[in-house]
């Protein structure tokens, strides 16, 4: 049985619609028109214990709505939902013991008082034994370099420091699932890196299952072994990152820089690989080979070219994950 089961999950919001202007405002007092927004429609997936899943999509794609339903603070309109063998919204108080949540835009730390006070409160909220609490706090303190900031009021922390403390706050009770909704939003490179390393490490060491939403695709690439892409409330892709590259008809390019100009023609005839390689010659000292990764062996291409031409330098271009995902967003569906 999967740790997280989501089947045909949907969430509609009804939003009061007003006509523009004063007239519209007055009309809306007597005649209310509601418009239904399908924030999440028909989403299904399963997540196994210990997985680290990236949940991505453009703004307004329904990521946060899904996370809210998974954490039990939003009731689905329809569909089936089960996490750690609980129906989150129905058994919220028992369920929430098993999960940790980080909302990048919010904090669960008390703003005006030292960080450690919030941690002490959470120990009691989740009824963590003194031993466990001290052991985990010591470990996190070391991993995230918190020694000097535990006695500082939260409002005096930098965003990066606060986020590190929020991560600790969500992990003190050793949850089975950790939900991270844009945990790195607004952080600098170092801050992001620190959080990434921390997540990787606790995922490996404690086996906590993680679901992460982010707009930082580097983060997804480095952290997640699985990717779910959503837009307009629907799943566009669910699978590995490597699979994303092969699934899409994206070319890999090899660019050869030549030490002497290539012969005007004829040399390509030996190298056509049954037509699966396209050749371009942007200038006399440059040759570009484009081909699908799965149909042609790049080493074969390189060695063939070396035989015919005098090569000075080689660059291999892979499609960036950003490009691929940008294309998925704009197409709105996955090519099968």
């Amino acid at each position: 049985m999967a740790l997280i089961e989501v089947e045909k999950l949907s969430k509609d919001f009804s939003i009061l619609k007003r006509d523009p202007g004063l007239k519209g405002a007055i009309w809306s007092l007597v005649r209310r028109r509601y418009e239904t927004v399908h924030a999440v429609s028909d989403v299904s997936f399963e997540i196994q214990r210990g997985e680290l899943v990236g949940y991505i999509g453009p703004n307004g794609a329904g990521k946060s709505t899904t996370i809210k339903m998974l954490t039990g603070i939003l009731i689905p309109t329809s569909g089936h939902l089960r996490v750690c063998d609980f129906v989150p919204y129905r058994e919220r108080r028992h369920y929430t013991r098993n999960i940790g949540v980080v909302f990048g835009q919010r904090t669960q730390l008390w703003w005006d008082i030292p960080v450690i006070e919030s941690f002490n409160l959470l120990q009691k909220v989740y009824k963590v034994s003194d031993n466990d609490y001290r052991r985990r706090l010591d470990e996190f303190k070391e991993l995230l370099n918190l020694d000097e900031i535990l006695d500082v009021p939260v409002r005096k922390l930098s965003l990066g420091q606060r986020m590190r403390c929020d991560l600790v706050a969500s992990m003190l009770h050793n949850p089975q699932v950790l939900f991270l909704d844009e945990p790195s939003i607004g952080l600098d490179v170092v801050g992001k890196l620190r959080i990434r390393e921390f997540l990787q490490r606790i995922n490996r060491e404690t086996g906590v299952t993680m679901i992460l939403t982010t707009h930082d695709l580097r983060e997804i690439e480095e952290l997640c072994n699985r990717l779910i892409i959503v837009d307009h409330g629907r799943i566009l892709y669910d699978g590995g990152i490597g699979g994303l590259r092969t699934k899409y008809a994206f070319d890999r390019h090899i660019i050869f820089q030549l030490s002497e100009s290539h012969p005007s023609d004829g040399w390509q005839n030996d190298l056509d690989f049954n037509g699966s390689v396209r050749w371009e010659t942007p200038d006399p000292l440059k040759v570009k080979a484009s081909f699908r990764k799965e149909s042609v062996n790049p080493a074969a291409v390189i060695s063939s070219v070396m035989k015919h031409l005098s090569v000075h330098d080689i660059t291999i271009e892979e499609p960036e994950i950003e490009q691929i995902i940008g294309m998925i967003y704009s197409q709105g569906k996955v090519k099968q």
Partner: protein
Amino acid sequence: MTGGECRAGSTGNAVMRWPVMATYIEYLRISFHKMLAYRISYLIGVFTYGIHVAVYYYLYKALYAETETINGYKVDDMLTYVAVGWICKSFYLNYIDRELTDDVQSGQVAMDLIKPIDFQAMYFSRGLGHSAFRLVLFTPPIVVLTVLLFSVNPPADAVHAVFFIFSTLMSVLIYLGINYIIGVLAIFFLSIRGVLYSKNLVIELLSGLLVPIDWFPDWFRTMSAFLPFQGIAYYPLAIYLGRIDGVELLQAVGFQALWVVIMIGVGRFIWMLCQKRILIQGG
């Protein structure tokens, strides 16, 4: 794997047998701690509150310039009523209504909903934290001020003193219960500030803090008998002055206790409705 294993958690969490109260005492403590963070606003608060008390004190003094007794209250009694009334208000006051509506409006309430806690008990603890803070740091300067500057009589006798303390504890709980309900209700209204502001005026009047309940016409007193408000100020003060005696002492405190229970029940019920709305509409 079976559900049972999953619930127990394969992660080896040793759940501590904390008493249930430990969590909420912790909320009380942290709320107290939070109040400490605002030292300047605390000092200003004491100052303006002192002025407030002085204004009412001299207003009543002027009222008694021509006469010895009004509606059965001698001048000494009345001035004591005003002074003790405001001393009590200095600690039964809490801000959970504002904290609650702020949290709901900003969406911060989500951070409480993801925790295994009882929402009302948490807010009550936070409110008690406010009261504890005020009792320890806000009330003493107000007591010193009023006792030094004004003539305040001691309680009628030892029995009335004991009942007064008990009755005052009840008034803290009634105020807390009302404030929680107002806070939750305000979520349904558009103009939250307006609701919270008019709440303060209504409670000051109906509780008997501004004018003793027995100065009002009959219809008002009848109405008050069916409302919780006189349990906030009028009963403790009437007990203090010895105006309530014998069996009526028990009746007054019983009235307060009953309203504490009703307020808690009503609070739970409307939060249930409100929570449902939040859970469906997403705040």
